């Protein structure tokens, strides 16, 4: 560690930090084009520092170190040289290091084992907390087709769980569903205007934030739909990306394809993840379309039919696939997997 500090490195805390957006950058103003290189695993736009102009590259830690010393990305340590303090050029030797330390130092014990008898332990959640909120079960399926649902947003291109439920400052609301829902889909790009967090309210015609518009629909008692592109929900496993849309009234997410974990998470929360049988149908749905979904024939392996009504156009039908099995359909009917588990325990 000393070697890093001696060359001007800064050692940070023992946690995820900038890797999940916990990084308040001040060296580069937001919006400035710049390059960073990390040995992390993600480099989606704005992941590390929230600046869309930060070009983040991923490499091995030894490469990051040598590039930081060279100060430029195009330095190839295998053949390029740097000028030392003595004015002479030198080439780096290959990195060497031990796989394992001589011994692991257990350090401070930071583990708390659960007691055998926990009957006296009290778990409390304050009703006024803005960080924790006990859950209210989602309503069960109303046992009829879902009709005349507005598209809340037609997301264009990459829409990862970071776009759906941004990390960083929002992490503190993880345990408070209503509060964290204010970040819902604010990173997704609206296909209508190429903007983030700006969608048209189909009832008022006014443009507003995605969560605000969803809340308005919810208040009107209207369920809504998200249209997505390929590999929708890639990235992390955070179920808030499914919980928040559900909480604000989402009934279905219809995409060209899903990332596995997110697809399952949507099912667990009682939202329908559906895919276009013909991916080209994505282009036929306008961002302000109304959608009706027939569910009388909702069975494993059976396609569903969506009726699309674009503004000022005749309705047309689109065929959708789903991956629900019989058990998962029960989750949908009960309103969520948890509702179903509860109903089975009774």
């Amino acid at each position: 560690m000393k070697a890093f500090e001696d060359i001007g490195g800064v050692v940070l805390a023992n946690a995820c930090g900038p890797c999940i957006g916990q990084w308040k950058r001040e060296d580069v103003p937001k919006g400035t084009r710049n390059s960073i290189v990390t040995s992390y695993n993600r480099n989606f736009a704005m992941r590390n520092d929230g600046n869309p102009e930060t070009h983040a590259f991923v490499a091995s830690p030894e490469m990051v170190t040598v590039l930081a010393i060279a100060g430029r990305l195009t330095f190839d340590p295998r053949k390029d040289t740097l000028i030392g303090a003595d004015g002479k050029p030198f080439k780096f030797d290959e990195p060497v290091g031990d796989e394992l330390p001589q011994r692991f130092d257990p350090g401070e014990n930071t583990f708390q084992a659960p007691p055998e008898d926990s009957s006296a332990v009290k778990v409390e959640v304050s009703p006024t907390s803005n960080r924790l909120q006990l859950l209210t079960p989602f309503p069960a399926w109303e046992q009829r087709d879902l009709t005349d649902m507005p598209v809340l947003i037609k997301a264009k291109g990459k829409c990862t769980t970071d776009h759906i439920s941004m990390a960083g400052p929002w992490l503190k609301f993880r345990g408070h569903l209503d509060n964290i829902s204010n970040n819902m889909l604010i990173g997704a790009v609206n296909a209508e205007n190429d903007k983030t967090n700006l969608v048209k309210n189909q009832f008022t015609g006014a443009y507003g934030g995605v969560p605000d518009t969803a809340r308005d629909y919810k208040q009107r008692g209207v369920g809504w739909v998200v249209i997505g592109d390929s590999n929708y929900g890639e990235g992390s496993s955070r179920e808030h990306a499914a919980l928040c849309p559900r909480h604000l009234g989402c009934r279905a997410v219809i995409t060209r394809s899903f990332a596995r974990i997110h697809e399952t998470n949507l099912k667990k929360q009682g939202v329908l993840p559906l895919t276009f049988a013909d991916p080209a149908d994505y282009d036929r749905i306008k961002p302000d379309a109304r959608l009706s979904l027939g569910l009388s024939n909702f069975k494993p392996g059976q396609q569903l039919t969506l009726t699309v009504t674009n503004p000022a156009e005749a309705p047309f039908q689109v065929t959708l696939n789903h991956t629900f099995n019989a058990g998962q359909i029960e989750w949908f009917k009960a309103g969520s997997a948890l509702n179903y588990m509860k109903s089975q325990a009774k």
Partner: protein
Amino acid sequence: MPRSRTISRLSGVYRREHRVLALECGTDLCDIRVLLVCSWCACTLSDRLNRPLTLGEKILYGHLDKPKEQDIKRGESYLNLRPDRVAMQDATAQMAVLQFISSGLPRTAVPTTIHCDHLIAAKAGGSQDLAVASSENKEVYDFLASAGAKYGMGFWRPGSGIIHQIILENYAFPGGLMIGTDSHTPNAGGLGMCAIGVGGADAVDVMANLPWELKAPNYIGVNLTGKLNGWASPKDVILKLAGLLTVKGGTGFIVEYFGPGVDSISCTGMATICNMGAEIGATTSVFPYNKRMHDYLVATGRSGIAREADLFGNLLRSDANASYDKVVNIDLSTLEPHLNGPFTPDLAHPISEFGKALHANGWPEELSVGLIGSCTNSSYEDMSRSASIARQALDHGLKVMCCLFISLSLSLSHSSLSLSHSLCCCCCWWWWQHRPRASLRSLLARSKSVQPSPRTVR
């Protein structure tokens, strides 16, 4: 008790033909480790399927809820599985625990741990910072600690380190199946475990003793030949693979590594590769048991598990002629260091071609910040290799041309790395957000003035 029920269930299923071992663990970190060697599938199930199995198939099918009735068709069936363990980080644990509470059950059905790492911000500090952090996150930590105690979950306090590293050092074992509420859970594949990232709702299922459902994955085999050397590192294996398969290429697949090149990669290096398998969408990634894993188990105080795994080494790898849906070959001897990006991890550039791509696209060449560490890459090996580069720069009187941040992930590794100041004190991001505006330069100055903590200086 649910835990003993789990063991007896396993024993009931497996005892006839194989050994299940409950190893008493010498530390108080966990009560019992179950080393489950899935020879069961090698016997009964391969009779049924009548074909050689991949390692991932052995592990998954060895954890089936109803192995005799389960429909098994890759890419089609939904497997009902019984994972050995659940791990949750503090961010996702909140919602999962809230959900578990609303299920009304008294205790978790399988060993479960909560790890406080995601709510901690990037700053080094002393005991003062810990106090600030604890008070800012107090409500959440208190909730998780008390709910953990109430419902039988182990609780790793803030400052313990990143979840995946703790799991690798304490809980992962060859042939095991675990789920974690974080997409980088597959990190434990570096120790031959099938570790799968899930949502909190899945964790709730497993904690509630319901079988956990997973669509039977397909399998990508990565045949590693040659030997890792020079500037190439384990990271470059996965950066190269990400370029070949893209961020979607692993969706629905378990990525299994095999071949003569495997032994040239350290256990923590294998963990790095498995960790980043999440970036190509893989269900999980797994390496076959080998000497490197043996050494790592011994070094982390688990020689008992190493001994047992040695006995079953032939089962902790794929069968000869096991069929993969896709096979990728990577020659480690000619593997170049890679720079992937920007904006997506599958835009892979071997370093020899990077300059061309940079100029063609007009990406900024000057580097503003370098960051090393994180749960993906802060093993002892990563740090010592990087430090060897830093030392060379020092020897030539050079410093970094841009900011270089080092974020580590673990107490054990930390303590072994001889830190000059306390890293194990945490600081919540909230403080970071609201601290007085300071330039990086002053931050640098401040971090250097932090006093050494007695615990970490040896």
